[in-house]
């Protein structure tokens, strides 16, 4: 379909404000002015509405499609949370108001949301302090690693390395590298971190280790107590990547288990929408001994239950965000927590784990499941057997699109061949899981009888498979003028 630029007709009136009194040349000298038009389109309101409505129909989303994309926690996003975030008392609030004299008084409601959300996250994770500033999971990781660096610098430790398991998300090593650390990989054994392998790479240069638990194979890291002990022996910190927190609420708390730093993906576990890639939110929690290094500002509650922002923390790493994080996202997550409460959050994890195990059992006779035991909220299967017949994980993914499902995550984690990673989440009904399993089984049966048909999938969507190599070579990344 045509782009908005192709649809543009000069002179067509959109949502214009009133006519200004003069022209730009009345206000500024010509050498400071733009030379020629900007090239933005001219469209009527209906042109725009129809264009974006048509585009939206070319998208799968949780509202319309089962979306078992592993590690992404594509659960249902309650609608009322959108209304809450749009309340004018929040949406119209200027972020610099608290920096005005006695500005805290103008923003008590918003500061209370920040304070209360931090308290909830502390109790859920067992950490002592939280900051809501990081604007995504990877941003939380970077914040966490900067806190780690500040801690070691303050203690006079000379540390140069961070350990990441081979099953880690790519953001873990990337975040460590951006904070100036060398990344050391540690191999897994039976799908979880092997303490012996860890001990072999551990020395007093190690600043910390980044772990996801349950890990990206959907397995609980049973050797955690031993890992904590090993790291403590060299004054290295243990970082928890909260991508998979959805599996363990009320079942394990990171602080109790010995983690020093935690980030939480609010957009996953706390049901804020993923928006086609963002915005998310990646708050970070720490244990008490790291509290001094937290980013500023920090929100505090005084004896008379008034809330204030404080900046006077001399050991703080500084600002990681211009203000208080993605406040609109925090609001939705807070509303979700308040709605569900203690029992609800526990049930979220229980049912996420139940659904994943159910789906695993419905598929483990037709797909190879390399770690076929009780999993947490997701599991990894392999299409290695199918690939011998020429049907790869990618082909199975595309065939699922034809049946109206979003595909599972494919080719991640890197340590499983022809990997398919399923995360059904707690919000999908048994009927949905059953129909999905039946449809996937039909695809796998077809892989035996008519593999060629699967290689052509998808055939029911607006486009068939796209040439990614040509895209990278042609680098056509904007519309020509």
């Amino acid at each position: 379909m045509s782009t908005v630029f192709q649809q543009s007709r000069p002179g067509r009136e959109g949502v214009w404000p009133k006519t200004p009194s003069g022209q730009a040349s009345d206000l500024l000298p010509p050498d400071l002015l733009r030379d020629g038009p900007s090239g933005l389109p001219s469209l009527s309101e209906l042109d725009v509405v129809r264009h974006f409505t048509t585009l939206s129909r070319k998208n799968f989303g949780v509202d319309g499609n089962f979306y078992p994309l592993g590690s992404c926690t594509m659960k249902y996003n309650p609608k009322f949370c959108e209304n809450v975030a749009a309340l004018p008392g929040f949406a119209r609030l200027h972020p610099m108001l608290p920096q005005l004299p006695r500005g805290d008084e103008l923003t008590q409601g918003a500061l209370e949301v920040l304070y209360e959300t931090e308290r909830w996250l502390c109790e859920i994770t067992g950490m002592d302090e939280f900051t809501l500033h990081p604007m995504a999971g990877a941003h939380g990781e970077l914040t966490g690693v900067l806190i780690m660096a500040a801690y070691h610098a303050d203690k006079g430790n000379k540390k140069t390395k961070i350990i990441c398991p081979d099953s880690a998300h790519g953001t873990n090593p990337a975040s460590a590298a951006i904070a100036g650390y060398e990344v050391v990989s540690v191999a897994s054994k039976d799908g979880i971190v092997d303490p012996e392998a860890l001990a072999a790479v551990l020395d007093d240069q190690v600043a910390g280790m980044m772990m996801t638990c349950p890990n990206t194979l959907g397995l609980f890291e049973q050797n955690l107590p031993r890992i904590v002990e090993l790291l403590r022996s060299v004054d290295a910190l243990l970082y928890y990547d909260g991508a998979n927190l959805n599996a363990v609420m009320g079942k394990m708390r990171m602080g109790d288990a010995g983690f020093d730093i935690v980030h939480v993906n609010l957009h996953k576990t706390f049901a804020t929408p993923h928006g086609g890639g963002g915005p998310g939110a990646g708050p970070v929690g720490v244990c008490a001994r790291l509290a001094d290094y937290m980013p500023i500002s920090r929100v505090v509650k005084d004896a008379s239950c008034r809330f204030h922002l404080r900046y006077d923390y001399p050991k703080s790493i500084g600002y990681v965000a211009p203000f208080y994080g993605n406040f609109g996202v925090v609001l939705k997550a807070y509303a979700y927590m308040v709605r569900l409460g203690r029992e609800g959050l526990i049930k979220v994890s229980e049912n996420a784990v139940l659904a994943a195990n159910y789906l695993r059992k419905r598929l483990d006779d037709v797909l190879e499941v390399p770690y076929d035991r009780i999993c947490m909220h997701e599991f990894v299967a392999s299409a290695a057997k199918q690939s011998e017949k020429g049907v790869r994980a990618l082909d199975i993914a595309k065939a699922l699109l034809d049946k109206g499902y979003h595909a599972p995550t494919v080719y991640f984690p890197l340590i499983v061949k022809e990997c398919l990673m399923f995360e059904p989440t707690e919000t999908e009904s048994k009927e949905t899981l059953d129909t999905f399993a039946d449809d996937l089984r039909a695809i796998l049966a077809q892989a035996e009888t008519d593999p060629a048909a699967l290689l052509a999938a998808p055939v029911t969507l607006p486009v068939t498979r796209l040439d990614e190599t040509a895209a990278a070579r042609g680098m056509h990344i904007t519309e020509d003028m």
Partner: protein
Amino acid sequence: MPYVPHTPEDARAMLETVGVSSVEELFAEIPLALRPKSFDLPPGLSESDTRAKLEDMASRNNTALVSFLGAGFYDHYVPSAVDALTGRGEFYTAYTPYQPEASQGTLQAIFEYQTAVSRLLGMDCANASVYDGGTALCEAVMMAVRQTKRTKVLISETVNPIYRILVDTFTRNLHLSLVTVPHREGATDFAAMQAALDKETACVVVQNPNFFGRVQDASALFSAAKAVGAVSVLSAYPVLASVLKTPGAMGADVAVAEGQSLGLPLSFGGPYLGVMTCTKALVRQMPGRIVGRTEDSKGRTGYVLTLQAREQHIRRQKATSNICSNQALCALRSLAHLCLLGEEGLKRTALLSMENARYAAGKLTAIKGVSLLGQGPIGNEFAVTLPRAAQDVCLALIGRGLVPGFPLGRYYQGLENALLVCCTEKTSKRDIDILAAWLEDEL
């Protein structure tokens, strides 16, 4: 319970299939020693009670004040269709478009967004956005450091002070030398920046209009930077970019902007939109997602994520950035906003905002003891010097229901009497007259 559909019968059947007798058995792998020491949270509330609780909290924020507060974050009118379109679940409940055939809506929208912001800033190309304008500036600095393999960063003190603090945090462990070049009465001191340029300089960083609202031309600095092999970085204000000389025309290699003013609510600081654009030569240094046009197996036009060899999920610790998300929904909002306003609507918004600022500057400087801070062209924001501390004046006027602007002393030593005043197209002459009258009362 809400959002979990399993009836007791469903749960029983599912447990049976799994081969366990209880949900608790599913968690048997978590050692007892690791079980929670506490999980002390309140019980859940109904949707209605939850909304009431949040409405009460919202009511304890004061958004009724007449405000001249901008300082990088602006209250422009957002057409109603923006909410209606971006509220469609097909957009906001989708994920990063890893399966392009099922995500052409998101992908084409990002391609159009990349085109719109590239054109607006006069640059060759854009990424799919980063978190906000401040982290976009940090990423721009890192791009320059990678490209030049140099470590000296020259940044003007007229760049948003919050962004400068962010750059400091993010580069702290990378052993860079950050040199801040002081402002000259609210203007960017191009002569001093040029004098500090040398063959160790990775980049020069300026903002236009700068934090004081002043409009200047960085062309000469940028060509001097080019001559020594340094990268030129400009932080822009996208609404005014529709009328001002573009970063591209000035010779910027990287242009970034806070995209909040393009259709996003102020929302107490986020989510916002980090607009990031650059020249073709630098595109492989750019962080984040980039969407490219291609064809499907039948020759039809389609869109995919491209140049992914820069990214963390492929390159891990060797990636250009750790960033994984983009602000896709915010980018979509800004694209819909730009389409609804169009070329003419955005230009009008800029002109009306600037006309209002001139009217306000005239009214305020007519008050005895009030003068403009420095001389020179302004955009929609300007700084005035008051005869007494701006903090005190601000406090008094807030008490009467009006925020007169931002007291600059918080970030600029010696400017304790200076106030930064912002107008948009929404500012009324009547409000400006009240501001002038009340300010006169207080002084």
